[in-house]
Structures are given as C-alpha cells and as structure tokens.
C-alpha cells in the first residue's frame, strides 16, 4: 500500500460523536493515535484543527483535519476503500442511511433536553423522544425488512454506528431514566438492533462503563438544573 499514514483522533471519552469515529476506524482496521481532550481546557492543536466549532471529534489524517462526526464517517469510508464498507453501495440506500442518521440527531436533542430538565418540561421532552423513536421504529422497517441484523461480520455500518452512539448504551440509559427506554414491546426492531450492536467488539471496546457514564450524565444534569433555576 505504500507509506504508513498518520491518523490521529482528538476526542473526549464520553462523547457519542467521538465514539462514532473511533468505532469506524476500528471496524476498518486503521491504526490511530487517540488524544483525549480536556474540554474545559482545549489544546492549541484542537483549536487550530477545528477553528469553526472548536469541538471533538477531529480526525487528522496526514496532517489534514476533518471535523463533524458524520463527515468523518464518510471520509473514513471513502479514503480506506477496502471492505468492510460503512455505507451501502446503492445511492437510494445511502440516502436512507443519511436521512435516518440526521433523524436520530433530532431524537438525541430531545434526550439531552430530558437530561437537562425536570418536572413537566422533562416529561414533555421524554414523550416527544419516545414519539420520535416510534417513527424510527416504523421507518427503519424499510432498511431492515427481515428484522434487525445480527452482525455476523462485525460491521455495524454507518447507521448502526450512529444509532448505537446515541441509543446503544442501554444499560446506562436504563439506570439513568430508571426505566428501559427501548422496550421490546414498543420498539421490537430498535431494541433488538441495539442489543446486537452492543455485542460488536469494536463497539464494546469504546463504550464507557455505566458507572463512569452515569457520573458524567449526573454532572451535566446538575449543572443544567442549577443554571435553569
């Protein structure tokens, strides 16, 4: 293949967006250097590589920075062209994957709202989140007509990576909400998809342990409620 390329990933251990990039690189078998950022004290390199958003993840490939996790996923798929492929080949299916990835973002925004609010406001956000997941449950039948995949090849694909970065950590979510979010009765497809995804080695490796994750979630919640008061 030629010279070994330099691949660096700037990230934060609890970020679902960083998780996507890390999983994709692992699935593709790409060696990379991971640099953990202190988000309260961002490095000069990060600010230089992502001056527009100043956020993680940033992938730096041979000195060239790429920011925005979905852009990074597509880049990884296009620059390392050997299988496994993250996105499907067919344009219509690619469009569907991209559509639902964007849709999951709107669901996640509601999840964040649920995290940062209480009482009626929180209940409202939670109901809206569940309603969005109902839409996804129905809409994804087109992508998975025979039910959720079981990932014998260990490749979650672009959409699987996006979905599990938000909704894959079912243990943490259940602990945090005090109840299972993706119940099998209401979400047979999404819940079995999440379960299968969480078994994939590359995903297991980067999923933060529930206690650590809960610590961060509680911190974010406390800070948000304090500033709301």
């Amino acid at each position, binding site marked *: 293949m030629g010279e070994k390329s330099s691949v660096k990933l700037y990230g934060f251990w609890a970020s679902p967006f960083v998780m996507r990039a890390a999983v994709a690189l692992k699935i593709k078998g790409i060696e990379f250097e991971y640099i953990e950022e202190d988000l309260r004290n961002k490095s000069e390199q990060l600010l230089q590589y992502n*001056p*527009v958003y100043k956020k993680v993840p940033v992938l730096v*490939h041979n000195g*060239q920075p*790429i*920011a*925005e996790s*979905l*852009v*990074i996923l*597509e*880049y990884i798929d*296009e*620059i390392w062209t050997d299988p496994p492929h993250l996105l499907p080949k067919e*344009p*219509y299916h*690619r*469009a569907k994957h*991209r*559509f639902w990835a*964007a*849709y999951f973002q709107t669901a996640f925004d509601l999840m964040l709202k649920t995290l940062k609010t209480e009482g009626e406001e929180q209940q409202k956000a939670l109901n809206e989140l569940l309603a969005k997941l109902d*839409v996804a449950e*129905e*809409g994804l*039948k*087109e992508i998975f007509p025979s039910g959720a995949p079981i990932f014998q090849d260990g490749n979650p694909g672009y959409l699987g990576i996006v979905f599990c970065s938000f909704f894959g950590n079912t243990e943490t979510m259940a602990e945090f909400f005090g109840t299972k979010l993706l119940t099998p009765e209401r979400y047979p497809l999404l819940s079995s998809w999440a379960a299968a995804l969480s078994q994939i080695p590359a995903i297991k490796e980067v999923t933060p342990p529930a206690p650590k994750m809960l610590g961060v979630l509680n911190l974010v919640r406390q800070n948000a409620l304090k500033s709301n008061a």
Partner: protein
Amino acid sequence: KVHSTSCGSLFKSLLKMGGEESVKLLGVWSSPYSRRVELALKLKGVPFESVEEDLSKKSALLMKCNPVHKKIPVLLHNGKSIVESLIILEYIDETWKGRPLLPQDPYERAKARFWAKFIDDKLMPGVWKTFLSKEEEREENKEEACELLRSLESELKDKKYFGGDDIGYLDIAANVVAFWIQRVESVVGIDLLNQDSFPILCKWIERLYHEIPLMKECLPPKEKHLVYIKTRYEAATATNGNL
C-alpha cells in the same frame, strides 16, 4: 404508515411510465432548498418534472413521499422518494455520473460536506436570528453572523468558485447565502453581506449571477420574491416566529 412502494404505485397511477426514467421534483418557487435540487438536476442535464407544492395545503403525494417531515424538496426517481436537499444532492451526484458536483478527492469532499452543513446548521440560523432580532439584541447577533460569514469566506479564498474553476456541490448549497441573504436584507433594512465587509464573497456572488446562467435561472423572480419576503417578514415579526 408509508413504504416507498405505495408512494411509487400512487405515482405510477398518475403518470404513464412507458419504461422511461422518471424524475419529479416537489418544491416551492421561493425555497432555496428546492432551488438547490433544481440547479443540480439542470447542471446534470437530467430531464425532470417540476411540481409546485402549496405548503398551506400539502398534496397527498408530498404526504406519502415525505411522511416523516412533510417538507419539500422531495425528489421522486422512478417512484422512490429522496428528501433533505443536501442528501438529494449527493443522491443526484451518485446516480447521474456525468458533470460531477462533489470533488473527486476524499479530503476535498469532506471539506465540501463540512461547509455545506455549516451553512445549514450554523450560518443561516445565525443570519435569520439577526434579521429577526429585537432592537437590543441586533448588534450582538449581527456580529456573530458576520463572524460566521467570515468563516465561510475564508474557505473561498482565491478560488473562482467553491468548486474551483466551475461551480460544484458547495456553490449549490451556498445558493441561500449568495441570493437569499441580500434579498432579505433589502427588505429588513439590515446591512450584513456588503462589499466592504465581504469583498471575496460579494465577488463570488457577482460571478455566480453573471457567469452561470443556470444559477440565475434557478432563482425566484426578484420582484415577486421581495414581495413574498416582505409579507413573511411582517408576519414573523408580528408573531415572533420564523422567516
């Protein structure tokens, strides 16, 4: 509950297919998002039928083909529906290979996608926020919007177009920056995207308008558009809503 096949069979019953490729664009004359798709199809030389939607009375076809968001634009290709303008642009580029819209190099493609997302996720919301600001917040919002415009301008640098010597995916995505900002500005009376502050962006806009006939063709007719903008702006500021 909708599957693309039921959308396809409704569509097929409306038009005789005859084994030809069929491309339909559901859009709205004033929307930069449906104009993006129109421009992309025309650049590619893809014959298509334009369907004007009435957003106050959405058609059965639109509801069937975009059940999740019920929004335009929708591209209907042989009965399959594709939605979200930037996703549609990628679909068009992947389906009709002539006259590429995105760059070939993966890093350049990543940059183009990054900036297109920036326009939709950050830049335009910042601009609309400025136009809809209350008096006391206007200066601060305007400064933020200028910062965002400067960012985008830095990507253009000394290139003729974002796509290089000819327009590409990012120029198409930036149609809203090139033409909607100045039109809304003139109605709202806020001076944002001007020659002094953004010489490079303004030069690019001039070039688009005078050197790319298709770009001009895919603009809402100016006078009609200004009237429309005025109506919507007055309604928005009365109810503090969205433009």
